[in-house]
């Protein structure tokens, strides 16, 4: 009789566990950067459906509460407070722009709640301004710049011109590029630098100024509308005929697809050749995504999908959603993603998710990546001493 009672009790508590929910409080600038964040949202929803259909994480259902963060740090902090206080979420996730990501990361440190920064690229979120509760998924500005350095060196060009959008991402990409290239290729010269305001490039004048400096090669950190304008003006003026270009992010479908038949051939870029990656883990993801949404995946889709899976894996490892246990679980967590295996580094809370490096080409009036290869994020990191010096907390 006693054992029977015990068994009933056990099964009851087991049931209670199974009915448990892990609430992810997701906030992002959906209205400000819709081109990137709509695919991201679809990726997240697909992951939630898959995980819950397979019985959840550690017996708990994943529940996603998404909010628009208004695109400004002040509003984002209020939205995050709402998620914490009213929705009682177990952890925070999301953000796109670096300033918003940093503000929410800082709040997470203050309120002692895990924050998985999925999209922001700024190096500071895991280094100078990193904290115990903040983890970042995407390869940072530094990592993506470092991925392109070997190709830049292989071009064997002496005089480089640089163009970047004038805000933190562009500035730190440029600083890293100059530092790393000068180390790898002593004697390199930087002959011109153009920093147009984000989204407001006067592409004709910028292309002309770059041409006037007569560089052997160009490094660009432009993306989105700025990239489109720069490509068109540069094509018209024949800037890229003889000058090779290395461009961060330009191979991501979000930024590559709008270039269509004007895609400049031969540029070295970081990106995501979604149609060509045939690894089993990627095919599985792509098939599921296309089946669910009748659309092909973008970079944002992979980020959203992987971020939700990361939470599920951490919950599984921690066997629950207690904050301190989650922090411990994330450190050194190894998991599978559509891009291959990654690890969440204990030293700076950066995941080793990488990116694809390749050249742009045109095929049937569309831009594609060719000669591409995957660069593991673990291989493009500064030394541990450097990171410890940057990361004080």
């Amino acid at each position, binding site marked *: 009789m006693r054992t029977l009672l015990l068994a009933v009790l056990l099964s009851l508590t087991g049931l209670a566990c199974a009915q448990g929910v892990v609430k992810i409080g997701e906030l992002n600038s959906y*209205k400000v950067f*819709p*081109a990137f964040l*709509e695919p991201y949202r679809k990726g997240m929803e697909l992951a939630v459906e898959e995980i819950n259909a397979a019985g959840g994480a550690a017996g708990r259902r994943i529940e996603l509460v998404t*909010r*628009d963060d*208004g695109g*400004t*740090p*002040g*509003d984002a*902090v*209020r*939205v995050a*407070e*709402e998620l914490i*206080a*009213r929705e009682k979420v177990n952890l925070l996730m999301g953000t796109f722009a*670096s*300033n918003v990501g*940093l*503000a929410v*990361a*800082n*709040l997470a440190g*203050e309120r002692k709640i895990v924050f998985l920064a999925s999209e922001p690229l*700024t190096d*500071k979120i895991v280094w100078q*301004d990193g904290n115990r509760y903040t983890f970042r998924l995407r390869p940072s500005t530094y990592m993506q710049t470092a991925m392109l350095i070997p190709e830049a060196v292989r071009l064997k060009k002496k005089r480089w011109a640089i163009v970047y959008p*004038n*805000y*933190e991402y562009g*500035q730190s990409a440029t600083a890293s590029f100059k530092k790393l290239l000068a180390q790898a290729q002593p004697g390199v010269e930087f002959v*011109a*630098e*153009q*920093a*147009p*305001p984000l*989204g*407001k490039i*006067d*592409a*004709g*004048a*910028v292309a*002309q*100024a770059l*041409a*006037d400096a007569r560089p052997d090669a160009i490094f660009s950190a432009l993306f*989105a*509308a700025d990239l*489109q*304008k720069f490509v*068109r*003006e540069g094509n*018209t*003026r*024949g800037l890229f005929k003889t000058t090779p270009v290395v461009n961060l992010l330009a191979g991501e479908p979000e930024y590559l697809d*709008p270039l269509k038949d004007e895609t400049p051939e031969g540029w070295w870029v970081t990106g995501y050749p979604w149609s060509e990656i045939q690894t089993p883990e990627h095919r599985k993801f792509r098939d599921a995504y296309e089946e669910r949404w009748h659309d092909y995946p973008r970079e944002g889709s992979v980020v959203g999908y992987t971020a939700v899976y990361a939470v599920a894996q951490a919950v599984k490892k921690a066997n629950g959603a207690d904050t301190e246990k989650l922090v411990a679980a994330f450190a050194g967590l190894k998991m599978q993603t559509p891009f291959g295996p990654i690890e969440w580094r204990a030293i700076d809370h950066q995941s080793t998710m990488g990116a694809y490096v390749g050249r742009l080409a045109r095929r049937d009036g569309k831009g594609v990546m060719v000669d591409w290869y995957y660069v593991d994020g673990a291989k493009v990191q500064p030394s541990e001493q450097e990171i410890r010096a940057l990361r004080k907390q």
Partner: protein
Amino acid sequence: MNGLAGASSLFLVAAGLSLIFGVSRIVNFAHGSLYMLGMYLAVALSGALGFWAALPLAALAVALCGAAMEILVLRRLYGAPELLQLLATFALVLIVRDFALWAWGPEDLLGPRAPGLGGAVEIAGRPFPQYDLFLLLLGPAVFAGLTLLLKRTRWGILVRAATEDRVMAGALGINERWLFTAVFALGALLAGLGGASAIPREPANLGIDLAVVADAFVVVVLGGLGSLPGAFAAALLIGEVKAFCIAFGLSQATLAIEFVIMAAVLVARPWGLLGRPLDPGVAQAKAAPPFSLPARATRVALAAVLVVLLLLPAASGPYPLVLLTDILVFALFAASLHFLMGPGGMASFGHAAYFGIGAYAAVLLVLRAHWPVVAAWLAAPFFGAAAAALFGWFCVRLSGIYLAMLTLAFAQIAWSIAFQWDRVTGGSNGLVGAWPPAWLAGERAYYGFTLAVSAACLALLWRAVYTPFGYALRAARDSALRAAAAGIDVRAQQWLAFVAAGGFAGIAGALYAFSKGSISPELLAVGRSVDGLVMVLLGGVHTLTGAAWGAALFTWLQDTAAREIGYWRAALGAAILALVIARAS
């Protein structure tokens, strides 16, 4: 050369804006939205019809949209105060943007190259795009056409008559209604043409509306309101200075260079390059009724609200307190702007500057100079006031829309400094990690602190309206001449109003910064200034406490609508329009 093509399309937009303002005295915030519509329509049409057919069709379609806007919305508002009209056009901006998102999706759409003009020609040894040559000719051609239209046709004479004196023109039997509609349609046509002709150079995107209207405002004000040659000269000046900055490797300077130029020109020439002083009889609506002292019932009601707010923490969960903290901060911010706009009669488009400077000063004192939070917070109003004293000294020498644009210029310059001065201000990322000390941390304690400070400051601001200073200020607003004759130093009163408003905005900024733990340049950005304007206008300029209620409504709406409604911008816009039209009629 590169500057000229850009200047040419800038002129198209500015010309339309200038024309509309000249006749209807409406400052049309939605002009950039018409430009954006022109872009999207041209991209959509050029797929089926080809670029050269899409160009005029898109412009015509935008003209029809413009006419519809005028008939449905603006026509009801000609008798309303200037600022209410401004608010209505701002609501249109919100609605059009969500419409474009709904109709064409979120992605940037680059148009096709212009068939026949896709290549480049060699000029002075450099390749120059043929299409830029076309644009370069389009601007002057439109300028010449407009000049002919206004100088040589009967319709042009009517437009000029209405620009000079619309009451007189009406009295002489001119059908104002249709004239206004036609002018608005023509202005919209020019905006649509500007947008449509830009698609080979610039992708249609959802952020272009405010970017373009800001540039166009600068051009129109710089050139002198209502002056086409002035707009033309200003567009050329800005286009060329930007191109030179880029050519000489000073591309960072293009962040705010047009505002630096505008500030310099307005300080030297208060009516712009080729503008004339507005006839004060036309420029100013009839004087507002004087503020009356709040009735006893009002004071009791206010006290009751205060008591409820004081007791709330006992009964409420944490999140309403977080939201109320924001509301209180913005109530103070809006009230400080209202002090300038209501009793002072000076509209400011750049009030966020003082809010942001207060916030930055306080956070920098904490993070860099290691001051205690409360000491830094006490210092914040002095920085806000100092900035206001500096900017205001120049601003009070101007009036009306020129004054407003100069405040905007100063705010944009302050913003660009915060954005660019990486080592001190943290650049675009801003600064993080400024939290209140333990005894103030937590939403309950900080709410209490904010409530105490905001209530005290609001009481001071409202009381100030009934001090000798407040009376003198209102006298200066209602009749500068009579006030001066009565021995009031008008400029000194207005300058003091700036300083006071800046100081209180600085307090609000510091309160905000410590409630969020971080700051970034968006605190000083034009969006925040516009938010402030909307709050004041929602509440009513000519009421004492309206600004605070406007702030509460706006902040609450933004918080709730963003959570519950997909297209919350359009919802907010529609709500504002309904309010404005209800108030006007």
